[in-house]
């Protein structure tokens, strides 16, 4: 027999889904929110997005050159950069935006081992880093002629808010968080393409609604709840950041626990914390609890009673 063929262990076929394909899907799903942000906040939003994406990609590239292991093709740095931009106010100094990108990729991701090893969502890690380091710049939501507070801050102060503006996104806030509709269109893309499922967003949002309904002082008033839901990056967080594969539990049961935890934390931070916001800190705190949640919700294999006997060692 002269010719020899390639061999491999089973299975011999592979699905077409790839890591870069998934990242591309996420980028695509972020387009409605990005597009609306640019439309709403003007050309400077484009500049912020370019700076964060470029700083993320460049950090990944340089690190890859140093380590002689190129990982830029997986597009994950682009996703981080875009998510970070969407979480920044449009007026942020560009050097801060760039610093945020470097922090996200280098400190939060690469130093912990790169894609898949980070214990915290890089974009949110960078946002919180910037929020703590430069609180004024990070909470300056003035744009064009508009100088008022974000709707969530107004809501907290007991003022009334325009619900229609909030749902469509005609308010102050970070670049990508204002339009509930744009974010939900993106969420639908993620759900339809199977990139995420509803476990985390649904358990997160339902818990949050119950929490603010019970403790928000307005009961289950639909207008109040709608304002809470569409304000302050909750939807962006629930669909795009809480569902980040690397930093959420891998098992179904763990994901419900995680979503409920995020809902509770966001509610507590929003209602009882000093600021009107709470999503970023809630998710980051949740990220840190993932190992614990995974340990608590370890699945039982098929054919065993819950916690059933295992093989003798």
């Amino acid at each position, binding site marked *: 027999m002269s010719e020899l063929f390639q*061999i*491999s262990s089973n299975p011999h*076929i592979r*699905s077409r889904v790839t890591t870069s394909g998934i990242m591309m899907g996420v980028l695509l799903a972020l387009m409605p929110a990005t597009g609306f942000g640019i439309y709403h906040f003007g050309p400077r939003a484009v500049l912020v997005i370019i700076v964060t994406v470029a700083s993320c990609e460049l950090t990944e590239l340089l690190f890859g050159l140093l380590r002689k292991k190129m990982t830029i093709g997986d597009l994950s740095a682009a996703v981080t950069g875009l998510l970070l931009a969407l979480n920044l106010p449009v007026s942020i100094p560009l050097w801060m935006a760039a610093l945020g990108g470097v922090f996200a990729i280098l400190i939060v991701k690469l130093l912990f081992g790169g894609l898949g090893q980070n214990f915290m969502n890089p974009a949110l890690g960078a946002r919180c880093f910037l929020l703590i380091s430069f609180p004024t710049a990070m909470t300056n939501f003035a744009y064009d002629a508009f100088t008022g507070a974000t709707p969530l801050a107004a809501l907290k102060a007991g003022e009334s808010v325009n619900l229609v503006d909030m749902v469509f996104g005609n308010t102050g806030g970070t670049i990508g968080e204002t339009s509930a509709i744009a974010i939900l269109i993106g969420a639908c893309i993620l759900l339809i393409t199977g990139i995420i499922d509803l476990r985390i967003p649904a358990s997160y949002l339902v818990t949050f609604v119950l929490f603010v309904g019970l403790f928000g002082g307005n009961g289950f008033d639909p207008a109040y709840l709608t304002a809470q839901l569409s304000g302050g990056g909750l939807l962006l967080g629930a669909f795009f950041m809480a569902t980040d594969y690397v930093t959420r539990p891998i*098992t179904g049961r763990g994901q419900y626990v995680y979503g409920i935890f995020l809902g509770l934390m966001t509610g507590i931070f929003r209602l009882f914390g000093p600021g009107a916001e709470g999503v970023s800190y809630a998710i980051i705190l949740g990220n840190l609890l993932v190992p614990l949640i995974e340990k608590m919700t370890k699945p039982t294999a098929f054919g065993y009673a819950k916690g059933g006997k295992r093989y003798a060692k």
Partner: protein
Amino acid sequence: MAKLTFVGGIHPFDGKSLTKKKRIKDILPTGDLVYPLSQHIGAPAKAVVKKGDHVLAGQMLAESGGFVSAPILSSVSGTVKAIEPRRVVTGDLVMSIVVENDGKYEDVGFAPKANVDKLSKQEILDLIRDAGIVGMGGAGFPTHVKLSPKNPDGIHYVIANCAECEPYLTSDYRRMVEEPMKLVEGLKIILRLFDNAKGIIAVEDNKSDCIETLTKLTKDEPYISVKTLKTKYPQGGERQLIYAVTGRKVNASMLPADVGCIVNNVDTIVAVYHAVAEGRPLIERIVTVTGDAVKSPRNFRVKIGTSYQDILEQAGGFGVTPEKIICGGPMMGFGMFQLDVPTTKTSTALLAFQRDDVSRAKPTACINCGRCVEVCPGRVVPSKLADYAEHFDEEAFLENYGMECCECGCCSYVCPAKRPLTQEIKSMRKLQLAKRKK
């Protein structure tokens, strides 16, 4: 009726349309026939012929090497040319009997026993054993052993596994289309062994024509029912199938008989029919020759022992140069590096692909996406088990149900990072199983 199924699984491209509509074709071998002495689970068979002996088709070449073992019979008439180690599909060298075909196909005279209907249980089991029947879906467990559980009265269901969930394979399908009665009769023979058992013919819903025919054929059989399964891989996995049709759960340390079930594949049941009702031992089987690199894909009825090369040539050879040749289905089959190896009792298919997905898929970092967890029918966490295997953390591997993996391949299939998850888990399992034997 509701479609029965299990939790997890995948829907790969099934490729069955390549061969589905073509009738099974009989082919005769052109070269020597090779019979590896180990083509079943258990002790290898012991040769009872020697070099130079003349043998007839159906004559025993090797006897059972123990209780869990099966005899091997010649599929042609001719002369024993050698008894020597030969390469088999897995690449191993296995002691084999080589028979030179005289082209006459004289057989020992196949005839059913008188009054087949009155055979005792032991007589039926003896016929099955002497016919050399083993599980023909791929595992190769001796059938007479499977049909002799400790407590035969505790068997409630005999399940005919007609799922054929592996992509590309259509041999079971063609069998059900062309000879459905043999399946029903074979199942009735097996049911005679178990006084309290009902027969279930479980078919995936992509074979609705078979479901219809079989339902018609069994409408007067009070103890046999036909059930529709959802089309999903690995629906025909023993544990998944039992769960789908009975709701009973079997784990890796249990036997189906522990929950009162016995599962046999279509071809095995037909072989039982041949052995008991017609007196014909297991010397032929149906092999699907398919894939996009094969010129004219089709199902063939071949003499066991024929080389794959021979079968492929009779299927017109390659239309284009293949990158990958597989013995069996694409999910659980073996990659073959050469074609000059014999078919055995467990040879279900020969697949040739133009494009090898695996060598193109460069493994990258796990992104923890959880797709492997969603599809795993064993309900374990494949990405973590593969990590434990990679880091040789035996304790964590066992603690997290590593031994429950059925090696179905779903996790490797779906992984977007293209990690060889199944392979890593499989290597660790093999090692642990070897350790346990010590």
